[in-house]
């Protein structure tokens, strides 16, 4: 399983991998928003947590179809299904690899980009914590969506449509946690809910995703 | 005719949209059903099977 993780990471960091793509997208969104909204600091500070969260969500959505598509094309997915490790575990590893190349860099980049959006001081900590807790859920949910659409030629649009409503609770609690943090309120409740979603998704969705892959490859 | 007062447009609009959608769905369902029955019957005749 560790070998699988390392292999996925190597593939992603090579040229043409998903590594830079989502990060670049995140950068573009946060840089473009002030041009659209206007440079007024108060407005930007108010919407900064939401923008960063939506940007991170869309950025991780962008690279979802890569999770299984390449493995499906070159046949290594069939090998994974018949491999001695349980498919659920392999799915979890895939999600972890996706998180390491998208969620983790996004989390680390968010405080830097938050400066551009005038995020108030106490918001930085909560922003980072909420993204660190929430992006794993995004990766796991996305892996499930990717598993559903693995056999399809042009599954990208369908994948977004399937995953979008599933992302909503994570987005609500994550952005709310960051917003409350930025406004100096207590952010504990949404943070706990966010952690609950992440843990629940980690516990349940690998099984659903594995079932979907088995159905797809039958 | 029933007196709807100043909200006549609202009420009639809501009923209109809703009935339109329902009738559209009913029509679509019936049309699809009919077309599928025809196609199935044609294929059955071709292959010489009876239902």
């Amino acid at each position: 399983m560790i070998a699988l993780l390392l292999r996925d990471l190597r593939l992603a960091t090579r040229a043409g991998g998903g590594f830079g793509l989502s990060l670049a997208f995140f950068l573009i969104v946060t840089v473009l928003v002030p041009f659209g909204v206007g440079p007024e600091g108060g407005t930007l500070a108010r919407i900064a947590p939401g923008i960063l969260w939506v940007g991170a969500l869309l950025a991780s959505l962008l690279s979802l179809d890569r999770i299984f598509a390449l493995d499906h094309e070159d046949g290594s997915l069939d090998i994974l299904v018949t491999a001695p490790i349980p498919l659920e575990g392999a799915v979890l590893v895939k999600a972890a690899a996706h998180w390491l190349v998208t969620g983790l860099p996004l989390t680390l980049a968010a405080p830097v980009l938050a400066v551009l959006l005038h995020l108030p001081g106490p918001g930085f900590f909560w922003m980072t914590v909420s993204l660190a807790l929430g992006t794993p859920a995004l990766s796991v949910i996305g892996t499930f969506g990717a598993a559903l659409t693995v056999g399809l030629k042009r599954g990208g649009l369908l994948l977004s449509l399937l995953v979008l409503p599933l992302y909503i609770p994570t987005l609500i609690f994550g952005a709310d946690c960051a917003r409350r943090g930025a406004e100096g309120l207590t952010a504990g409740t949404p943070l706990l809910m966010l952690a609950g979603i992440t843990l629940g998704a980690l516990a349940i969705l690998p099984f659903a995703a594995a079932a979907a892959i088995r159905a797809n490859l039958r | 005719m029933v007196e709807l007062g100043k909200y006549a447009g609202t009420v009639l609009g809501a009923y209109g949209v809703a009935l339109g959608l329902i009738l559209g769905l009913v029509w679509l369902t019936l049309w699809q059903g009919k077309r599928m029955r025809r196609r199935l019957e044609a294929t059955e005749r071709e292959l010489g099977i009876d239902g």
Partner: protein
Amino acid sequence: MSIWEYANPKKFMQTSAWVLPWVTGLAFVTLVLGLTWGFFFTGDDYRQGSTVKIIFIHVPAALMAINAWLMMLVCSLIWLIRRHHVSALAAKAAAPVGVTMTLIALFTGAIWGQPMWGTWWAWDPRLTSFLILFLFYLGYIALWEAIEDPDTAADLTSVLCLVGSVFALLSRYAVNFWNQGLHQGASLSLAPGERMAMTFKLPLYVAMTGFVLLFVALVLIRTRTEIRARRLRALEARGRMG
């Protein structure tokens, strides 16, 4: 007769052919009765004026939008556990009906909200939940359409329906948390002596019955169509081989 690989579809076709005219007729009668009663023979609300009449469409549609998803959930479970083909096809058949009901609830709500709340759309928890439900329906239908092999499609959509149900519930709570909202409380409550006068309740119940029957009739017809489509596929496959 070997084409009907499973005894169930055949029996379903027989039973539904017998039941269908009754359900359709009853649905038509109750719908016409409930809606004309609601439209022509109820008074105006003292606050909402005549817009209160919209409730006779809005509430039953919203009810069926949720119940259709519940029915799909049950059918998906039956398919995953027992592998009854009719069950999977019924879930497929129910989705477009459910999405129409969701749309009706959203549209009538928006039209009603315009004069009452002064806006077409508010990010009120219930409205938002219905929007999310609408997205779930779209995704579910799109997944059915996208996959060629019917059994694979049934498997995947069932899994999506199960996971979607969990997340739909989650969204419901998340959205409540996110915005407290300005929606009316439950319109129908069992607590005595409040909420709604009997003059509104009775036609509303009739309209609700009508919507339920309409849903059943439409799902039956659509399931029959799906079964025929399945049979056509099998016949065509056999024709190509023979």
